[in-house]
């Protein structure tokens, strides 16, 4: 009984992401070529050389400011199917772009808002769990900020923007950030919180 449920819902979440990718031309290209994002595949110095308004330059500036690298991500375990494992990996590897697109810094409320955004986007359960339990670590002011502006933004923007699993980010380095946002239907999160409680990405 439980096994039957799992087949159609649980592992189903990753399959659902994969199926959404199968339903779009760009998603299929990504699944076919399985591009990865790391310092081996992205030339960070090239990105630094791009004009400051570009998506590539904004992204590398965000990496530098946050002190993180595209390589500092946990590898995907426990997923047997190579294609589904790749989907999981892609999902993790593209996470940092969301910061660039949404203007959300690496703070607890910002990460929680981003989790909400991703949850609405993907429906992946682990994102959902952290979105719900994340607020436990917040003070009341931060909680209020989340409830009143960040979460409403995340739900609205996450449900109306393009499917971000199907975006070929690698093709957009030289685009201006505003154009990328326009293309994907994303607008920055309300930017009215303190950058007090920094967390590790």
């Amino acid at each position: 009984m439980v096994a039957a449920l799992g087949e159609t819902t649980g592992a189903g979440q990753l399959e659902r992401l994969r199926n959404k990718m199968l339903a779009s031309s760009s998603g299929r290209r990504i699944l076919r070529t399985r591009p990865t994002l790391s310092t081996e595949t992205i030339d960070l110095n090239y990105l630094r050389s791009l004009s400051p308004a570009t998506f590539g330059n904004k992204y590398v500036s965000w990496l530098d400011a946050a002190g993180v690298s595209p390589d500092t991500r946990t590898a995907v375990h426990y997923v047997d199917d190579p294609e589904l494992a790749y989907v999981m990996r892609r999902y993790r590897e593209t996470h940092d772009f969301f910061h660039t697109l949404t203007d959300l810094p690496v703070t607890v409320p910002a990460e929680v808002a981003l989790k909400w955004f991703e949850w609405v986007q993907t429906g992946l359960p682990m994102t959902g769990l952290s979105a719900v339990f994340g607020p436990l670590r917040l003070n009341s002011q931060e909680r209020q900020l989340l409830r009143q502006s960040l979460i409403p933004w995340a739900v609205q923007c996450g449900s109306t923007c393009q499917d971000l699993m199907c975006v070929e980010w690698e093709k957009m380095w030289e685009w201006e950030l505003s154009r990328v946002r326009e293309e994907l239907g994303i607008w920055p999160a309300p930017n009215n919180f303190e950058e007090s409680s920094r967390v590790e990405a």
Partner: protein
Amino acid sequence: MLGLSYRSSTFTQTLIEKYAYRSRTLATLRNIPLQNQFVNAYDVIILGGGVAGAALAASLVSSPLMKAKKIALVEAMDLSRVQQWTPTSGQYSNRVVSLTPASRTFLEDIGVWDRLFIDRIRPYTNMQVWDGISDARIEFDTSIFSKTHQNVSEPPAIAYMAENVNLQYGIMKRIRAAQESGQQFDIIDNTKVQRVFAQGKDGEKEDAIDLSAWPSLELSNGQTISGQLLIGADGANSPVRAYADIQSLGWDYDRQGVVATLQLDPATQNVTAWQRFLPTGPIAILPLDHGISSMVWTTTPAIAAALKSIPEQDFCALVNVAIRSNPADVQYLCQQIQKSEHGLDLQDEYSWRQMAQNESKTSEEIASREDRLPPHVIGVQSGTRASFPLRLRNSERYVADRIALVGDAAHTIHPLAGQGLNQGLRDVQVLSNVLTNGVKHGEDLGNIHLLSQYASNRYARNLVMLSACDKIHRLYSTEFGPMVWARSLGLRGVNAFGYLKSEIMKYAMGIEDVKSKITPSRERFVNIDRL
């Protein structure tokens, strides 16, 4: 009994007038053959020489009681082409049906089965139906009958695949044989019925018989014929039904059934009927011969149009996708083919998805997956791609005064369970029994009370089948998680539960209604029925 006494000439005209419609047939009225009295009057007119109408004709002429009856079959198409049909081996028509064992028995009884090209009829004893979303599967295999019951030696067929034209061929041959042995039977083919109407009172009034209430047909050859009983076997848009002012209730499925004759990988055995439920509808691959199967793919009208127009190779790749790939993949590719320039290599897309699906599987796992799938499609016989609109219809009544409806004229069903014509043949069997009984008792064949016996036997049964197939269609049209889960659980449950499965199987095989009063029960069924 009554019939006999009416034949005596002592009866007065008044009595004759009084009982004219109730108690006897025209031909026996004054012991003069009908055609000598009224060239254009018949005891029974069947409009529609499709399989249902032609089978009814064959069934009527196979009863000695009908010998004195004057019967006509009117059909718009040229039936001589059916009679001269000479099949080419290895080539199959795209119009095929899956016939239940009950339908086979009936065709045997009326002397049609032996007149078919029997090597073109393919029995199957295994059927696999699975859910495209969850992969839950149910397998029917009649070897469970032969294993558990000593009196059944070989596994009985679940059904027989037959071309419609083969059935029509055998039926016409049967009718010819009856004609040759003296049956009064007119085949009026190549003739369209322009109008169905009731004769005015003025016509033949001075004669012994008042034809005023008889339905009449205005034919495209300029003639008019009238019948004591008019049977509408004239298909889904039945003119007879319209004449009788009988409403047809139901709806269109906004779906088309795309049919084609497929060439399959000859390296694999072809003995199973396959059906996969996709969100747009089921796709079925049904065995016709070694390496040849018939396909029915239920899909939206736009996709159906594209499936008919893309190059044959692309079509084959897409059928393989529809059988083997993820429904999301099927959906994407079906969308793309609707564009004039999709720029996709469908064969390549298919190979890639198969590779991705099998990537983490061992070679045993891959082989066992293949065992649960039909052979690969390697070609489509040219000119066999066609599509038909799918609908659900049931007439509010099957009979009216001097009118009876059979086959698609009475009801139209979703083809997902392959029951349409089988139901039609059951109608034919029951109606023909009712009419022969009527003749035996000297009754007026057009009498509504007689005809009602037919309707009361068939109406509820057809309705049950119609709504069962409609429910299945609805159940499988959703991708909504809990529904998929529930239906998969149901399917797996039934699959694991032998008794229930054999009951369903018997129902689908048409073994359900042999106990009915009107249909004489048949030895052949009794065996299986006791299982």
